[in-house]
């Protein structure tokens, strides 16, 4: 008897805990019943397909990060060679991971190798004929750089999305190459703005102008060759005070300061009351900027954003920490730009692989049909069980309700997301969930026919079926696990529902159902018949 009391208490305890976690917050939210905040935070969340929102899959072009590393090291070696006065005929990039130095004179070999020691931390050097050296980015460094660029891109997107003020965004890495980022923004409907803000490189560079603006590229080069350590950058269209059409500037390749030196950026107005972005540099960047501007008073400073010169004001005096980006901006562009600059540059460009938007009314329709289907399915199953198994059917129905409550509670507890396929998973869990009860009840019937007593028949029925249930549930869990592995978004929601449903079903069918039988038979001494 006391054994049974403990079982009943366990069953009731489990029910109360999961009902509190899963069902109460839903009712509280719907009927405005007070509930503690931590409980409401745990409430079962709706997936994007039910709530509406934007779902984007982006790929990080990790080659960009390798190219940047190769370029930077190549420039560093070039200037090192210049300071040490080692003549070479050419320093040229071969591909994203390789560059080549040509024409090192035979007598200078040792000196060249000396100069290249620092580069060789990350690069392998191989020598060819005629004083040619090829530097290749080390394979392990390549892997690290690719991984880092994806992580940085994800963090940058996170910062930008947070600045956008989206509630409960989800930003995760995925894909077989690990270079994809899944962004889910519930409730967002303006895809274009979201995409623009997430995808802009946001790379700000301030560079000293050597020559320009000029209407053609050719005017800035000598015999088609860009001078060493320089580059030609096009201007942004429609910059005020500049000639119409695209113009070009010849600027120093190495930036005086970059977006990484920014402490803050905010929307403001320039002296003509045009929208502009004011920025503040942190101390170290400010010191460097002060030195460069002091040395170059009277020259132009190009403000280059994502490879386009936005404006090139003349340096009037030494500037240390505060500056302003002017150009032909609308006030909305200025808002977006300052947001992008505040959250930092992307380490690599992004491409969009997949875009999905679900309008809120579409999601509401899905919920309505999903819930309707669940109720109809539940009704069918309940009616059948009651008609076929009579009073024992009540036992099965109670177990079914238990199953659903535990399912809701567990999903809320582990922070799973309810999706439309997840609702389908609910319906199927109900349909298949009664399988265990049917299996047990049919076995009890057989045992009763074998002229056993009611109690013995029930005990034997549960005992014999137990391992069958373990086997069937394990096999189903195996396929649910692989389904989870395979799926994205909604499918994962389905796999989780299925998985949790299987676990809770095993508990309700073997433990709750048995306890209910024991409870029903406990007060009677001699039981002759069982309503089954």
């Amino acid at each position: 008897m006391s054994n049974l009391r403990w079982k009943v208490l366990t069953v009731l305890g489990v029910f109360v805990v999961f009902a509190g976690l899963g069902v109460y917050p839903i009712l509280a939210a719907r009927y405005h019943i007070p509930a503690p905040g931590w409980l409401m935070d745990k409430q079962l969340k709706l997936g994007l397909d039910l709530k509406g929102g934007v779902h984007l899959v982006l790929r990080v072009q990790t080659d960009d990060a390798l190219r940047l590393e190769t370029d930077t090291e190549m420039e560093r070696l070039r200037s090192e060679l210049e300071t040490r006065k080692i003549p070479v005929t050419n320093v040229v990039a071969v591909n994203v991971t390789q560059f080549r130095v040509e024409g090192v004179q035979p007598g200078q070999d040792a000196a060249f190798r000396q100069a290249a020691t620092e580069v060789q931390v990350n690069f392998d050097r191989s020598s060819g004929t005629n004083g040619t050296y090829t530097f290749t980015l080390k394979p392990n460094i390549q892997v690290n750089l690719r991984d880092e660029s994806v992580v940085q891109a994800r963090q940058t997107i996170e910062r930008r999305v947070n600045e956008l003020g989206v509630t409960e965004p989800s930003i995760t890495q995925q894909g077989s190459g690990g270079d994809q980022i899944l962004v889910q923004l519930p409730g967002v409907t303006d895809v274009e703005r979201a995409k623009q803000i997430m995808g802009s490189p946001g790379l700000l560079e301030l560079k000293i102008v050597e020559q320009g603006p000029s209407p053609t590229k050719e005017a800035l080069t000598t015999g088609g060759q860009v001078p060493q350590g320089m580059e030609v950058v096009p201007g942004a269209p429609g910059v005020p005070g500049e000639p119409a059409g695209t113009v070009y500037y010849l600027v120093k390749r190495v930036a005086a300061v970059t977006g990484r030196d920014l402490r803050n950026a905010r929307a403001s107005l320039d002296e003509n009351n045009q929208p502009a972005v004011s920025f503040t540099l942190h101390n170290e960047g400010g010191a460097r900027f002060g030195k460069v501007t002091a040395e170059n008073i009277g020259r132009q400073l190009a403000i280059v954003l994502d490879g386009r010169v936005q404006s090139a004001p003349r340096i009037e005096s030494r500037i240390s920490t505060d500056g302003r980006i002017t150009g032909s901006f609308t006030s909305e562009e200025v808002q977006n730009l300052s947001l992008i600059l505040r959250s930092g540059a992307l380490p690599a460009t992004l491409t969009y692989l997949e875009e999905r938007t679900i309008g809120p009314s579409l999601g509401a329709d899905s919920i309505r049909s999903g819930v309707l289907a669940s109720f109809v399915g539940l009704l069918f199953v309940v009616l059948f069980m009651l008609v076929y198994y009579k009073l024992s059917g009540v036992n099965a129905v109670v177990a079914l309700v238990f199953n659903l409550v535990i399912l809701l509670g567990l999903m809320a507890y582990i922070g799973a997301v309810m999706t439309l396929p997840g609702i389908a998973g609910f319906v199927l869990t109900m349909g298949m969930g009664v399988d265990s009860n049917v299996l047990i009840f049919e076995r009890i019937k057989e045992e009763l026919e074998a002229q056993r007593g009611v109690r013995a028949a029930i005990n034997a029925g549960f005992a014999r079926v137990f391992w069958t249930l373990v086997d069937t549930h394990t096999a189903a869990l195996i396929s649910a696990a692989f389904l989870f592995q395979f799926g994205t978004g909604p499918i994962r929601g389905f796999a989780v529902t299925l998985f949790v449903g299987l676990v809770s079903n095993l508990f309700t069918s073997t433990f709750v159902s048995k306890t209910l039988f024991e409870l029903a038979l406990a007060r009677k001494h001699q039981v002759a018949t069982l309503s089954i």
Partner: protein
Amino acid sequence: MHIFKDTHFDFLRWRWHAIALSALIVAAGVFTIATRGIQKGVEFAGGTVVIEQFDQAVSIQQVRAALEKSFGQDISIQEFGDPSQRQVMIRVAQVGAESGASLGTTADALEAALKQANLGNFRRQGTEIVGPAVGRELTTKGISATVLSLAGILAYISFRFQLSFATGAVVATMHDLLVTFAFLAFFGYDLTLNVIAALLTITGFSTNDTIVIFDRVRENLRGMRRDSIGTIINVAINQTLGRTIITSGTALLSALALFFFGGEVLHGFAFTMVVGIITGTYSTVFIAAAIVSFWRGSAPTRAASHAPATASTGAPPQPQRKQKPQRKARAS
């Protein structure tokens, strides 16, 4: 109440007929897929889908006429959801370039073409734009998930039962996947992510069903040592027949509820489940059990040197009627 009380159907007698029927369906499916192709959903094929809600009722023909000029013949247009909502789902194969933020240009071009056709105001309710790279990756992932889950089940059943049982269960499950594919092709359903999820669920359901019967076979093997495996399997199927019908019935009812009330998005999913539940039940009896009977041959399971120990196992009484020996079985 008892729908099947003490039945003695000789299921294995029909195994060759059943295998012929399954082969016919699968062959017809393969033929349909080879000639007409199976339609891939936008997740796999790539492309642009928009769902537009119109202020006034428009016909499919009107929408098609508006779009044909710029998008050619290969447009799929269908009503979406309740007719009173005046929602139309349009799918084209094109996507904007996969670079930068221009993936959505096709969707914008679609809307521009609709605006020009003077069909009244409309609002975009949803979009789904998938570049070709995603589809390729999903296909490999889907195949590997199915193969791995079958391998996992094979390993588990071999561990808990025997290799012959595991092979039977896995072949039956593969049969179910093929038959379901065939029906998807016959009825022209798109192969979407939801359909794949349903297919993977069917692997679980079908195995579940098979294990229940195998478990009974295993139990009977201990008590019926003089009988051939064919007899034992027949007895096991008959013993669990009530359960098989009821479970498949309730699962089928749930899947039918989804099919009729679950809304547009779940239609393909529910259809796949309905087909899968039916074929899953059928294959347990006629494919999985048949394979075990072929594998184990028709000899008695144990040389009848001593009497079967039915009393000690406490199993319910075995059917008294003598089963016919399995002469027809061309077991290897």
